[in-house]
């Protein structure tokens, strides 16, 4: 098995090469003007370490996999095309209104609560480029108002005259009956044939999402259209580059569903957040390989803290209405929470509570923390880390960024004055506040899904993760932390171990059972009986899945289908994804089985009394996951080795300060490269791992495991 997996991020292009059983990680700077250059450099670096020629590598690799945050960047930079939108007449304001709540999506509570300063993000399609089509389809798919084509042609012309580069179409209930959306596409093709220069891409909402909800479907289609060009050009460049290198096999794109596919089966929306999702996939893979049980994966960088859950047994949490940037969309995406906490988070004095508040403002990388000495004046978490002695001013980020302690001290002064404390005490407060906030986020994730923290192992990666892991875990009530192997290129590692996967969805409201009045009789529970109708939906979704794989040259026999049903009780909004054991409905037993599963799901997550079968049990959405199980990457067993080895000689000592301990504590420093599996180091200790620093807090011990994995385990719990 030979593979290349790449994660193209905003700064670095991470690469993992698997060649003849060896796993090599390498990095290069991302080259935004032509992604291929950075990619080539990363591969070349890896080849150097492997000691082979890149040509030979390309010749032997069976697949190349990409994860990327390009889409996310395009949204932040607003570098997409000018777009027009056609909606059903009467729905013109839908996108602009963003369900009302759109002003707060993607923001923290502090921003959400301040209505006086609440602003929606600038729209991707301004109101002036939205047109209402005279047409209407009802909820069941029946046409109640035939489309007015003449008017439509005029509207399209107006938009084209305005210079739109992409046309998005989202008509009401197009998921129940797409004929009107398809007709728009036909008309556009008639007016602007594709062989002429005036032709533009048309994105139809029902093809981007199979779900009901005109706003979320429209915003999905818009987001997809917006990223389409950027992704298309970037990916095409890469593909051409690979062709030039003599590579003839598939280039696979990691999807935010946790699966992957070739370019011809990928829409742009599916690539957003695929980097972090690949990280979660790597965690899942790790958990399976090493039997780690439930994991909560955390990625703490400079500005954000990502949290994802990996549940034992492969059950995945998906978001079906995730927020991308500041827009809610509807696409099945692996559930991932991002908090605005990182090394750059700024601390302020909170007058109301007379204590320190950290975030949500961030100094980012420009100007960065005060200690970077690049103009930042506000105290940040990294400043606190520096003052507490955890960071080596000479050796930060492998020595690339020199840190100035005096800047951090100055930045702390104001808060220190307000609180009448010394700077070290303030730094401790900043660190514990930041850790506490992140821990709160972790706990919240677990609790709101009905899980208990003590059943979880925390995975910590990202630049600042291992530095704060012990403290976050302690606040969250978790005793085991794993810094995973290949943590520097963890997302790439996730890409390497993925398999092709496609979701196909269809919204259809089906009451499995429902109280209703029949004639003059009193209300009674009526059960669904038309099983064939349900099976037809499933079969059709499976066919689409197979066709998708066939397009990528994967034989239909290899395809596996998993039927998931989004279910809810008649009167509630909460939906649960229920996996059906089999793929066809045969009788009422199947319905009762589903109802039972739904009830069990609710009870375990939200408590006794939350299931409400009295108001009917409904299937609201059918989803078929079509996948092929590829051979995964053979990571080693990262469980703590049985054999314990004593700590090596420290390479130095520093006076460090710890929350809850007075005064400076003389703390040994180690070099991560000297760690061999089985080495145990008791806290307090600092381990320099080049790009990151491991902090073993008092009361914790570190145990090194295979492939560079490191455990932090709590000593003082019992």
């Amino acid at each position: 098995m030979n593979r290349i997996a790449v994660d193209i991020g905003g700064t670095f292009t991470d690469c993992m090469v698997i060649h003849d059983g060896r796993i090599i990680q390498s990095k290069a700077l991302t080259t935004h003007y032509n992604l291929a250059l950075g990619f080539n450099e990363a591969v070349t670096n890896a080849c150097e370490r492997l000691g082979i020629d890149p040509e030979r590598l390309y010749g032997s690799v069976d697949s190349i996999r990409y994860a990327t945050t390009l889409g996310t960047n395009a949204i932040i930079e607003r570098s997409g095309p000018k777009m027009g939108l056609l909606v059903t007449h009467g729905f013109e304001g839908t996108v602009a209104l963003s369900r009302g709540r759109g002003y707060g999506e993607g923001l923290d509570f502090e921003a959400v609560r301040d209505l006086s300063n609440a602003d929606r993000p600038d729209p991707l399609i301004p109101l002036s480029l939205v047109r209402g089509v005279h047409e209407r389809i009802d909820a069941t798919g029946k046409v109640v108002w035939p489309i007015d084509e003449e008017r439509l042609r005029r509207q399209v012309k107006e938009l084209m005259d305005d210079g739109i580069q992409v046309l998005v179409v989202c008509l009401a209930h197009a998921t129940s009956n797409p004929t009107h959306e398809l007709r728009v596409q036909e008309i556009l093709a008639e007016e602007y044939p594709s062989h002429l220069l005036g032709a533009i891409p048309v994105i139809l909402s029902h093809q981007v999402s199979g779900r009901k909800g005109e706003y979320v479907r429209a915003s999905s289609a818009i987001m997809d259209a917006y990223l389409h060009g950027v992704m298309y050009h970037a990916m095409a460049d890469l593909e051409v580059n690979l062709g030039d290198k003599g590579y003839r096999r598939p280039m696979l794109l990691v999807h935010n569903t946790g699966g992957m596919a070739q370019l011809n089966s990928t829409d742009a929306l599916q690539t957003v957040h695929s980097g972090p999702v690949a990280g979660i996939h790597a965690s899942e893979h790790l958990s399976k390989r090493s039997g780690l049980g439930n994991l909560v994966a955390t990625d703490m960088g400079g500005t954000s803290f990502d949290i994802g859950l990996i549940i034992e047994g492969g059950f995945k949490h998906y978001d079906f209405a995730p927020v991308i940037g500041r827009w809610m969309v509807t696409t099945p995406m692996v559930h991932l929470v991002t908090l605005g906490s990182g090394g750059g988070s700024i601390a302020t004095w909170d007058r109301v509570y007379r204590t320190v508040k950290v975030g949500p403002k961030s100094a980012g990388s420009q100007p960065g923390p005060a200690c970077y000495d690049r103009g930042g004046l506000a105290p940040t978490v990294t400043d606190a880390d520096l003052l507490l002695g955890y960071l080596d001013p000479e050796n930060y980020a492998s020595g690339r960024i020199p840190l100035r302690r005096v800047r951090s001290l100055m930045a702390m002064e104001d808060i220190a004055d307000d609180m009448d404390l010394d700077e070290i005490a303030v730094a401790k407060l900043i660190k514990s506040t930041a850790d506490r906030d992140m821990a709160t986020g972790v706990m919240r994730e677990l609790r709101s899904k009905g899980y208990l923290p003590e059943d979880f192992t925390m995975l910590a990666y990202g630049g600042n993760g291992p530095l704060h892991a012990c403290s976050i875990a302690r606040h969250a009530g978790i005793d085991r932390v794993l810094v995973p192997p290949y943590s520097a290129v963890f997302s790439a590692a996730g890409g390497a171990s993925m398999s092709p996967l496609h979701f196909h969805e269809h919204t259809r409201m089906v009451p499995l059972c429902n109280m209703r009045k029949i004639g003059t009789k009193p209300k009674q529970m009526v059960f669904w009986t038309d099983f064939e109708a349900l099976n037809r939906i499933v079969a059709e979704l499976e066919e689409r899945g197979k066709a998708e794989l066939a397009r990528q040259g994967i034989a239909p026999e290899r395809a596996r289908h998993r039927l998931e049903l989004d279910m809810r009780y008649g009167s509630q909004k909460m939906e649960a994804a229920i996996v059906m054991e089999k793929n066809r409905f045969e009788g009422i037993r199947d319905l009762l089985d589903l109802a039972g599963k739904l009830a069990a799901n609710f009870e375990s997550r939200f408590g006794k009394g939350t299931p409400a079968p009295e108001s009917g049990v409904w299937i609201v959405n059918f989803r078929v996951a079509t996948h092929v199980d590829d051979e995964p990457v053979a990571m080693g067993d990262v469980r703590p080795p049985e054999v314990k080895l004593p700590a090596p000689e420290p390479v130095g000592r520093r006076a460090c300060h710890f929350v809850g301990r007075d005064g400076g504590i003389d703390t040994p420093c180690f070099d991560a490269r000297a760690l061999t599996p089985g080495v145990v180091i008791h806290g307090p200790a600092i381990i320099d791992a080049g790009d990151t620093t491991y902090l073993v807090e008092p009361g914790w011990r570190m145990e090194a495991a295979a492939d560079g994995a490191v455990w932090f385990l709590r000593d003082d719990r019992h």
Partner: protein
Amino acid sequence: MNLHVCAEGETLCRPGTFAATALGPEERKLVDAFLTTNAGFVGPDPEILYDHKMGPRSEREARVLSGAVDLNLFQEIRARLTSVLDENFEISEQTVAAPAAKFADLSTAFMTSIGDVALLSNRGVAAFAIVMHYPVRHILKYWRDDPTVGIRPGDAFLMNDARFGGIHNPDQSMVMPHFVGDELVGWTVCAMHEGEVGARAPGGMGPSIESPYEEGFRGSPIKIAANWELKSDLVTLIQNSVREKEVMLVDLRARLATCMRLAREFDKAAADYGLDAVVGTLRHTLELVAEESRRRIEELPRGTVRGQFYVDSTSRETAMLKVNVAMSVEEGGRILVDMRGTSPELHNRSINAPIVTAKLGVMVGLMNFFWPDLPKSPAVLQHFDFVSDPKSLMNCSYDVPNAQNVSTGFKMITATEVLMSKLSFQVPNKTAAIKAPWYNQPAGMMYGGETQHGHEVGNICADLNGMAGGARWNRDGEHSMCANFAQMNDIGESEQTEEDLPVVMFSSKKFNRDLASFGKYRGGSGYQTMYARYGRANFGFQAITNGSKFPSTVGLFGGYGSPCYPITKIKGVNVFEELAEGVAGYDADVVELLNRRPLKGATYETVAGAMEFELAFEGELYVVHQGAGAAYGDVLERDPALVIKDLKEGLISDWTARNLYFVAFDAQTLVVDPEKTADLRRDERLARIRRGKTWDAFVADHVRPSPPVGLLYFGRWNDDAEVYGGMYKDMPGEFPREIMLPDPKLIYEAILNRKVVSGVSTEDAIEYDPLTEELQQPWTFASFAKFLRVEGLMVGMLAKMAGSGLTSLFAPRGKRMDRWLDRIGGHLTDYLVACGPTFVKLGQVLSTRPDLLGTAVAGRLRKLQDKVPPMKDAQARAILEKSLGRRVEEVFAEFGATPIASASVAQVHRGRLKDGREVAIKIKRPGLEANVTGDLRALSTLVGVLRSVVPGFSGMNPREMITELGLAVRGQMNFLGEIANNRRFARNFAGKSWLRLPEIHDEFSSNEVITMEFIHGVNPLEYVRKRGKHDADLAEKVYSMYFEMVFTNKFFHADLHSGNMLVEGEGKIVLLDTGLAHEFPSYYIKRQLRAYLCVAAVDGYLQGDNYLGDRPHMADEKTKAAISHDLHLMYQRWDKHRAKGHTKDLTTLWLQIMMLLRKHRVPLDRELVMLMVGDITISGLVHEFDPEFDVVEYTRHELPRLIFRDGKLPLNDPYLLAASRRDLLHDIRRAIGIDVDDDEYV
């Protein structure tokens, strides 16, 4: 027992109470003991409900907080518990069933042991933070020690009656006591908008509710769960009381589960941090918030800001309800909120708000718009005190319904926004942006009925959450985003709504033009939703919005308030059938729908924002709108680029961009012309200065001593301590009896009855009459002087009249009376001219009423011309320049110094514009308006005298007379009216090549100056004379002009004499002096047409019927019979006369009719008299052009066209049928095209 405690702020003790001071402590104890053991009913306790402040520390709290506290630890606990609340908020949102709660009308909270909300979920309804301690205090006070109830671990209490706290009936809240061991350490809360509670109106609130006993399930706090389980008997009781039974069950369970999850998390936190720390944190949070709020108040400038806010409907009828608010920042960091002067409560309308709701309005305003960073808790209002009138809209009693109290309560949010914005404007460290108010009405459809899935429902659509944001000091407000009482609540997806409910939303989220407020920064725009009921289910709608006539949301610092859109109903049609057949021109925009009415056969109706529940038929459309957030700052300061952006986005109209924002731009390209825009804006600023008034003038003009007559007004007027209560006025809280408003349906029925009986529409019965107010103003010296002068002159006139009476005796017999009357007319004319312009106008008005004064006097008055010496040239120029804002030389190339005509109101100069066009410039005399009031007052006295002197006046309503006069005078004095009339005539006659009106140069005209085209024409009489002989053509033109005005346009030049016409070239008529014009309601036009029919039928009886038949109150049967008889004789005589060719018009007939009615003292409608007099005048004029012109023939010829082609009368009109019986009207028979069988009608 509580019934006997006088609440704070209550001045009135209830009957049977003892004033506390009258009792010694011993006696008091005895009395209390007696009352306690003999209470029949545990009602709402004012002692609890008037106390919004946090309670004392518990023992444990006091112990924990008296020592050293670790603020950082507390903060950690707080963060954890808040996070718990937030996640449980989300779980609850997803597991409850009530629609509003599913869209975030919900809150979760932790309370201290005495029930103060210490922490509330971040999302959701802030208001729950300040209303939940009332029920808990009630439970603690009354149920804790009651052996039949008690408080034990695993109990949960449910409440929804706003009389016991909470927000309003549809909100159902659950509280659960939390024990650690035996100690009650706190409470957990899940409060939400349940909606359906079995009220008379589906969804728990609605206009139809008239009594507290129609508000559905009235939950005082009851123990709904024990031992962590719901009690099935009580659950069944509640389910049995409501429409949505399953929803109720699901929600009860979901809330219980939420309270339990919160309790579990409390325990976990206590296990991690210690109970003391957790309890301490909760209490400490309250105290910190209280302290911080005091600090923030201290930053505000000392002083008082005031505001008044209006609710324009009681939900059942249009009314002006006032919410009067003043906020005073006082020493020591306190704010006093004074709501006195607010409307009194309404005994049978549900928009009354208990004091609790009024306070929460202030709290919500503060939390959402000023101090969003503070945790939500009652401590926010710790340093606020409230004063209000008892039994008022903001402090209602327990005897009145209050389900819709939020409609009123939201006004307090707006009040807080406006007043606090003003107070905090200069505070340097703001915790939020200064902004104009949020839209504040629950503008969404409520619905009820059965769904396509067989579910019974009764609730509210999430659209109400889409309230638009107010403009900020530096940027526009956001379009509909969330309710002003909550954060991030959701307006939902229409596709989902249609999955769940039997509706198709033909407009789901659509902005209407100009449904944004206007200002330097505009408020967010509201949106329109349009529902069509779909499928076979029984389903209907209801709405509870106010502010569809009067803006509910006011602008800030010069910005406009929210525009008002009513609810529109399009009924009697199935839109689905129409669309399937391809209806042309259908558009989901309500303005288009109402203007173009593409659905044929439908009724188009608008109703005020509140609408009683009604079932809809399939395909009927209901359109409702969200209002706009208010605007900030002056429209003239808005960046033209932003105006164009709004225009492009369809948020404003072209008209608004040009005429309100004064932006000049190219209509095609929308490119702004910056210079011209600057010019326009400068001009408008100058015009504003010209329109401006001094403070005293403004007060004199605008401040009225009392509300307009006929307006249903509630609340204080000016600074009077007394309060209006619709029909009464009294001291607050002391109305002679409860204010009961009649059921609007009864009124409607009465109107229908009256319509059937009289044919008179009384829809406009409540009419604003500014004059009455004016006349009620106190005398000033000037007006008194005027009065004296007028009276003095009158004495002189009366003396002269008497003298003439004597001299007339010398005239030959039979002519004496005529001569005397002629003399009287002369004296009257002189007198009126001497008294000034108002009186001249009076003369002109009187001249149109020979029915009152007799023909002789009226005829004399008709010749009334007021020759007044012209103004000095300089004065005329000064007026011109001031009014136009430019120098005469800038406008005119030439300006004639001597006027070519001069009258009391204005004089006319000749001039020439810069571009060479010749113009006539009409300039108003100065200082006329100031005299009018004095004149009118003098007149009203005079009319009183006239009534007793002149016969015919006795049947006359002098107020109507004066009102008419006032309007006529004012109308003539404001040239804008004349200009508008000129336009209207020009438009009406645009198709006639032989008639035109002088072109008016708008840019050089104003309310004081009219610059119009100079017409080179001659007086028509002169024209005819010069051409020698008669001019039949001109005669027919003029008469047809009259006919067209009256019967086709219904808009009539009320001053048509030869002096107001010119003939240009070869017989082209030019109409001048359009100052006096009258618009006739169809009713009178029909009546006049029928009068013609009666003439044609020579049927005097019928004519009697025409005038009196539907107005039995005007004449008794005997008089009516006499009149009819006389009329009939008169008609016969006239007909004979005509047959002989002696008369060619109807003049004698009309005059005789008027004289006859005057003889019988039967007043005629002035409109009818005006129509007759109009015909007389015009007939006279026409006969001067051509004595041979046969008016009657013309009428006969034209009538069928009017009746049939223009459809003025329905074919089954009894008069038409009667007329068609006569051979006289062959034309009519032919025109009907049917052969009427005479026998059938004989």
